[in-house]
């Protein structure tokens, strides 16, 4: 990279990491909300049985 390697890869590297992390965080957020909705649902059903 003609002496510019640090600057070029510093740019593309940070961009690549950031663009890879964002979808992973979003997938986790989606899974978390679905998990909590499922737990809520099964808790409701449990309560329905005992009452």
């Amino acid at each position, binding site marked *: *990279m*003609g002496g*510019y390697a640090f600057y*070029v890869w510093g740019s593309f590297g940070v961009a690549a990491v950031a663009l890879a992390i*964002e*979808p992973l965080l979003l997938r986790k957020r989606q899974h978390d909300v679905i998990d909590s*909705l499922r737990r809520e649902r099964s808790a409701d059903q449990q309560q329905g049985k005992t009452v």
Partner: protein
Amino acid sequence: MNNKIIHWFKFGSPQSFYPLAGKMLPWFVALAVILGIAGLWLGLFVAPTDATQGEGYRIIFIHVAASWMSMFLYAVMAFWAGIGLALNTRLSSMMASAIAPTGALMAFLSLWTGALWGKPMWGTWWVWDARLTSELILLFLYLGFIALQAAIDEPRRADKAGAILALVGVVNVPIIAFSVKWWNTLHQGASISMTKAPSMAVTMLWGMLLMALCLWMYSIAMTLMRVRAIILERERHSDWVKHAVE
């Protein structure tokens, strides 16, 4: 004929947009990946070395694309926030909230790559010139919008407060765009002009355009992912969400 009309407004409800967003998502991810590979290949392997900036100029392939997206996403965010405020449509406000973090990321990448370009080319990471300062303000507007919404517990009130901030801040977008014309800035003028013939090699131009399209498709994909999570979080007590997770 009449029964073939698509009822577009139907998709204005979170309930019908949620599955539609899920169907569109893989297409935008695929487009982003394909455009990204093509853009990086052109930008890093095909485009010639710049006469004055050597290989260091290759930073612009990510810098210009991220900068364009940071401004464009702000305008789109303000548009949806404004629609949400004016028409009281929940999904519009959710779209605005879903765009903000991706916009902030683009503004950050614009500043980060700009600093890494500025150090070898100008000899400094940062100067308080009009272009750089107004882009920094854009990042703070995004962060302010996110923080303001996070600080208000009631979602509809958070939507309204955020919308005011987003709409007031939109004045900053043309300031960034024209800053290199209106003031003497260390930052160079526009890379691409609508009125003049391109002054750069065709492969450089295509590399830049493909990277911009890649980040555009990426931003749509991330917005769709985030708006789906926001819809479930906010509508969690409605019957359709309870049935959707069965």
